[in-house]
């Protein structure tokens, strides 16, 4: 397999031309938080505003038609990228909203049933009873934990979780976690802190055996590897656009068509309705039922351009490229005395998020010295406090890689850590 031409890729990213702190080359190792954007994405967004801007799905003028076409073409293209049909792809503000959309489908179906409102056949599986269970894992980002905690608080359902092994993998030894009370299993595809890529077929098999739904948080997988919902076996996939070279302000929910069809809406208002009278309303079919208000058309067009960009690179090549940097990072870190990697050290089923702590030095201080060297990393709890607690740390330093990084960036990270140790005398 041929490799990525990183020099050519870097030329597409204007921000990589700037310098930071004392004229240092920018070594951006924080793509797990948000990725940088190539000209192709910026140009697509600008082109929409310059030539086609209008409120989509409204009005009969030419611009409205063009904007609607651009928006719906983006939906098809993005859906195609994950092996889905356009009608099953919902645009949200971000991945957090996408997860909330599903958790609120449960809450709203439950509330409506308690008030004896008409619900479509098939929506029963979204109605929660006291004692029903929602299963998450101990490695979830807060975005895939807090909405489920809230749902349990409001319905009397019980939150359970799959624990972690010392190596940073899911501990699937307790089969009783999957039982007839389990209504949905919500888990991450790749941990944003540990880098662990979870064994989804193993989860799907257990969840299916008890007829539970499965939501996969793909924020750290769709940008970095080939993901195909037609073979994954999950019911919902959520991810954000801005972590995959796309604009801020757009996320995605893919859902199985028969489930989306019976889910009550989350945010309500314009665009998502069918008939509205003073005494009540009926709702549009998915995906519009879940897209109240004027949608983020320019961002969808930008995200579609990001998808084109990644598709042209080839997701297998992207994954192989990141794997190479991950390997170099782990071996580089292991050569530094006092380093502890938080997450798997083996490279099997492992993505490019590499977190670590350093004896005697707080991550914030490590990050500051790295920043002084032009190396941008994430420090803190990474919106995954329970993961930190599991491994007995309050914070970690994390490097994440993407298509515009190369082995020189890994070297800059390792050199920066040595500089931090020297500066603080540890």
């Amino acid at each position, binding site marked *: 397999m041929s490799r990525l031409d990183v020099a050519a890729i870097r030329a597409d990213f204007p921000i990589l031309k700037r310098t930071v*702190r004392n004229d240092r080359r920018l070594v951006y190792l924080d793509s797990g938080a948000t990725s940088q954007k190539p000209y192709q994405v910026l140009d697509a967004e600008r082109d929409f505003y310059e030539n086609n801007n209008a409120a989509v799905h409204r009005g009969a003028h030419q611009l409205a038609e063009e904007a609607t076409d651009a928006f719906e073409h983006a939906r098809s293209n993005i859906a195609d990228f994950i092996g889905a049909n356009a009608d099953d792809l919902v645009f949200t503000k971000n991945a957090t909203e996408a997860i909330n959309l599903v958790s609120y489908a449960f809450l709203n179906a439950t509330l409506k049933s308690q008030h004896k409102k008409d619900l479509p056949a098939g929506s029963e599986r979204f109605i929660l009873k006291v004692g029903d269970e929602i299963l998450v894992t101990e490695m979830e980002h807060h975005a895939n934990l807090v909405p489920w905690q809230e749902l349990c608080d409001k319905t009397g359902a019980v939150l359970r979780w799959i624990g972690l092994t010392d190596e940073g993998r899911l501990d699937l030894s307790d089969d009783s976690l999957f039982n007839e009370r389990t209504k949905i299993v919500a888990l991450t595809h790749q941990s944003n802190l540990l880098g662990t890529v979870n064994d989804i077929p193993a989860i799907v098999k257990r969840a299916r055996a008890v007829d539970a739904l499965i939501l996969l948080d793909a924020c750290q997988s769709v940008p970095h590897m080939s993901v195909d919902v037609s073979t994954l076996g999950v019911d919902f996939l959520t991810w954000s656009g801005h972590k995959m070279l796309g604009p801020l302000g757009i996320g995605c929910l893919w859902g199985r068509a028969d489930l989306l069809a019976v889910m009550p809406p989350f945010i309500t208002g314009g665009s998502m309705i069918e008939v509205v009278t003073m005494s009540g309303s009926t709702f549009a079919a998915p995906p519009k039922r879940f897209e109240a208000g004027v949608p983020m058309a320019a961002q969808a067009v930008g995200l579609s351009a990001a998808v084109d960009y990644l598709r042209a690179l080839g997701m297998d090549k992207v994954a192989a490229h990141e794997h190479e940097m991950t390997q170099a990072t782990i071996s580089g870190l292991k050569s530094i005395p006092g380093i502890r990697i938080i997450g798997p050290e083996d490279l099997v089923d492992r993505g490019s998020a590499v977190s670590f702590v350093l004896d005697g030095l*707080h991550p*914030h201080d490590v990050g*500051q010295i790295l920043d*002084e060297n032009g190396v941008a990393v994430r*420090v*803190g709890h990474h919106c995954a406090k329970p993961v930190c607690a599991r491994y007995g740390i*309050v914070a970690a330093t994390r490097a994440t890689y993407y298509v515009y990084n190369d082995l020189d960036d890994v070297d800059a990270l390792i050199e920066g850590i040595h500089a931090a140790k020297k*500066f603080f005398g540890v």
Partner: protein
Amino acid sequence: MKLENMYQEIILDHYKRPHGKGLSEDFLAEVHHVNPTCGDEITLRVSGNEDGTISVSYNNEGCSISQASASIMFDQINDLDFVHGDNAVEHLVAMLQRTQEPNEEVLGDGIALVGVAQYPARVKCALLPWMAWKDAAIQAGMKKEK
């Protein structure tokens, strides 16, 4: 380099050899403050003395700036009354917002924290112990009008 303005020797000294660290068993109020972006944490206790001053004790975990700042806070405002302690807190806030020049008389070694103002992400680290003190003192009913 600019960074050395923030990590002055005096800051690193306080970080490596903090003053007053360790919780007192005797207290009127206890608070636990966290810096949610990075995981700095402090537990701080206050007790009142007969002369109206406030004794402080603390235990903390976190970056060099938050730990050094706690040590400096202990030096500067332990056994001060609320008005004087709060005055120091306000001076520190203003210095970190760059609206006031460092005042060694009020802040002591705290003037060395001035370099933190160049790094907005670290300002919270520096303020954490001082804000915890203020919160605890108010909760303990030690706030007296001037």
